[in-house]
């Protein structure tokens, strides 16, 4: 009885006090942020949101994971059509062209200007900024989680064949894989050939070798861009990969087969993989006890002048149709994320790299890259800044690129299963990819990319 009484009294007091308190504190303005990361990464985002909410009293961001990038875009589109869109949304790299034509966003640079925040856009690494900027260089969205592809190599295995350094050219890679095979390694190198690997195998390779993926500067100069990967150096690359696969130097590793390539590398089963710097933490945490490994920039063919690699990841878009108060909150949130201290928090807890020079310098100053688990991640910055971005290495601005990636997976599988020759497969990739681009262009008649 007494407990109930006391409970009721406490409730009444609580209600009363909150009623009394209401006029004193204005409720913080709430706004939504949808993102596409899950698991560990989602928890880091949640912590970041909490930090933002605790850092000030005027705004409250409500962060909701939508599971993955695809679902985030789909759900945002559905919400937008129903007029219930979030204020800020994370959209992956290849969704940029779709977003730019959507007419559903508020340009990030304008938003910051209107709300009195000064952002030094030259501070962004050019390889990152250009990917998300318009052809004129305006930032429509803010780079958020960013990564690039690296080569992970097992030092112990390379020591067995008398090497202490990672191979720099694909010619050397071929020789080293052969040597490792002869030294008794079952799986010198692991790759996978699904849609996801378009990123490291086709996109990064083409950028580093300054080879176009599509005409019109990879689509930056118009919606009438068409693929041309069937007549660049990429053909030779696929031919070599296939040759090494046939010789047993490369094994295909994917989750469907039992073990993906990151697991295969971490357990010491396979000695070389090409994957995102974002996996650096995973390999470190799950590696076989005592295994020595390191990361290096992706190799190039001999005689190639190395260019910058492409950024992967996602950027933050602010959607249209929200109130001024919500925009104020969004601007404060983006400014918070832009802060070098947030960059340090973000990179420490994930494998992602800082997106600004000041963030990178701040982290270097804190000794981030000297310590064991994070040592090596600076290679990603070196790879991204290997050169000033060229017209081609700015990025890829093609419509429905997700479908083109799917087509890449399909054709690579056909090639590796000996159903078609390398050239036939890549010709089909171009043909089907062009049909996708054609359709995208028809859907937006008379529109041009900003």
């Amino acid at each position, binding site marked *: 009885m007494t407990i109930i009484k006391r409970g009721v009294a406490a409730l009444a007091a609580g209600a009363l006090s909150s009623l009394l308190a209401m006029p004193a504190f204005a409720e913080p303005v709430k706004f939504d942020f949808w993102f596409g990361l899950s698991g560990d990464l989602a928890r880091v985002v949640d912590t970041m949101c909490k930090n933002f909410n605790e850092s000030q009293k005027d705004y409250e961001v409500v962060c909701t994971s939508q599971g993955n990038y695809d679902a985030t875009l789909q759900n945002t589109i559905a919400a937008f059509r129903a007029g219930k869109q979030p204020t800020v949304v994370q959209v992956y790299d290849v969704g940029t062209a779709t977003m730019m034509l959507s007419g559903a966003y508020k340009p990030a640079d304008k938003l910051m200007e209107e709300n009195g925040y000064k952002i030094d856009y030259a501070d962004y690494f050019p390889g990152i900024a250009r990917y998300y900027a318009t052809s004129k260089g305006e930032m429509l969205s803010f780079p958020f989680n960013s990564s690039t592809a690296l080569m992970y190599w097992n030092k112990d295995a390379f020591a067995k064949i008398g090497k202490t350094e990672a191979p720099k050219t694909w010619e050397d890679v071929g020789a080293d894989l052969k040597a490792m095979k002869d030294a008794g390694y079952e799986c010198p190198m692991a790759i996978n050939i699904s849609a996801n690997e378009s990123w490291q195998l086709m996109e990064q390779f083409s950028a580093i070798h300054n080879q176009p993926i599509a005409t019109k500067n990879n689509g930056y100069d118009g919606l009438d861009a068409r693929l041309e990967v069937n007549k660049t150096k990429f053909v030779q690359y696929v031919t070599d990969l296939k040759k090494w696969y046939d010789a047993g130097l490369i094994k295909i590793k994917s989750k469907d087969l039992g073990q993906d390539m990151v697991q295969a590398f971490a357990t010491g089963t396979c000695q070389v993989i090409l994957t995102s710097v974002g996996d650096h933490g995973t390999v470190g945490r799950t590696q076989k006890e005592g295994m020595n490994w390191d990361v290096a920039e992706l190799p190039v063919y001999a005689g190639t002048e190395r260019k910058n690699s492409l950024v992967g990841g996602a950027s933050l878009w602010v959607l249209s149709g929200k109130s001024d108060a919500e925009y104020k909150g969004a601007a404060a949130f983006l400014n918070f994320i832009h802060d070098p201290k947030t960059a340090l928090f973000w990179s420490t807890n994930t494998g992602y790299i800082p997106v600004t020079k000041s963030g990178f310098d701040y982290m270097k100053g804190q000794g981030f890259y000297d310590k064991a688990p994070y040592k090596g991640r600076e290679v990603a910055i070196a790879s991204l800044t290997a050169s000033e971005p060229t017209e081609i290495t700015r990025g890829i601005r093609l419509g*429905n690129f997700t479908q083109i990636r799917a087509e890449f*997976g399909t054709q690579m599988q056909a090639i590796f299963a000996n159903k078609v020759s390398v050239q036939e497969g890549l010709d089909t990739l171009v043909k089907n990819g062009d049909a996708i681009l054609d359709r995208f262009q028809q859907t937006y008649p008379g529109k041009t990319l900003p």
Partner: protein
Amino acid sequence: MEKRVTFSKWTIGILFAVPQLILIFTFFYWPAGQAVYWSLTLQQPWGGGNIWVGLDNFRSILANPDYWRSVSASLVFAGISTGLAMFIALVLAALTDRQLAGSWLYRVVLIWPYGIAAPALALAFRFILAPEAGFLSVVNQMWPGIWDPGLDGTDAMASIIVAFSWKYVGYNFIFFLAAFQAIPRSLIEAAAMDGSGVIRRFWDIQFPLITPTIFFLLVINITESFQDSFGIVDIMTSGGPANATNLMVYKIYSDGFKGLDYSGAAAQSIILMLLIILLTIFQFRFLERRVHYR
């Protein structure tokens, strides 16, 4: 004098039908109508506008060889998985009906697979059929490279057929068992006294008497294999390798939601709907003649 409240036949009929009609309209006719409209236009995903293109969407889909490969993959999948699921369920039900030792246990256990959500069972089968780490890796140790659903389209198709059939064996089993148990014992006993064996009794008495159930399950299985295969394909193969398992329903999903080509996906779903309607009409027209309803 007796007083009676009467309604005109029409009013009461319609009144009873209205709730159902509203449901059907909201959840079927309205979205289906919307799909027809979308299939005749080019929709901008963000709702910025659309263009009337008439039958262009259908023309470009039907001219695409990949689409026809998807149709034939769907037909192969439907044919084999329906056959497998129905045959196994029929045998199991016939055996359970004979009241062999422990049949009460089978009666309960065999229904369970149908209660498992497709993605969950697909995940289980992905582990079982994984060529390097699953149960089937034994086969690869004996004959290296013989089982490779990651690159071999036939192996991948076999995987999804096995997973789908496994689920529908449970469903079919319930219906077959019920049908068998509805057959009067006296018929079978009389046949047994006349000296006919188990197989003979099955073919001459039980099988003809359960044809209505077989027909019903055939229609349901074929329809479901076109629609319910989505979760299994998504988890196990994502339509690969090289589109070998890119069934029609999965292609609709990936073109529409991943590729944001809402119009093309709408047109494909109209075609799928027509195909299922056609198949069902065909079955009623030609197969139902051979069904004997009591």
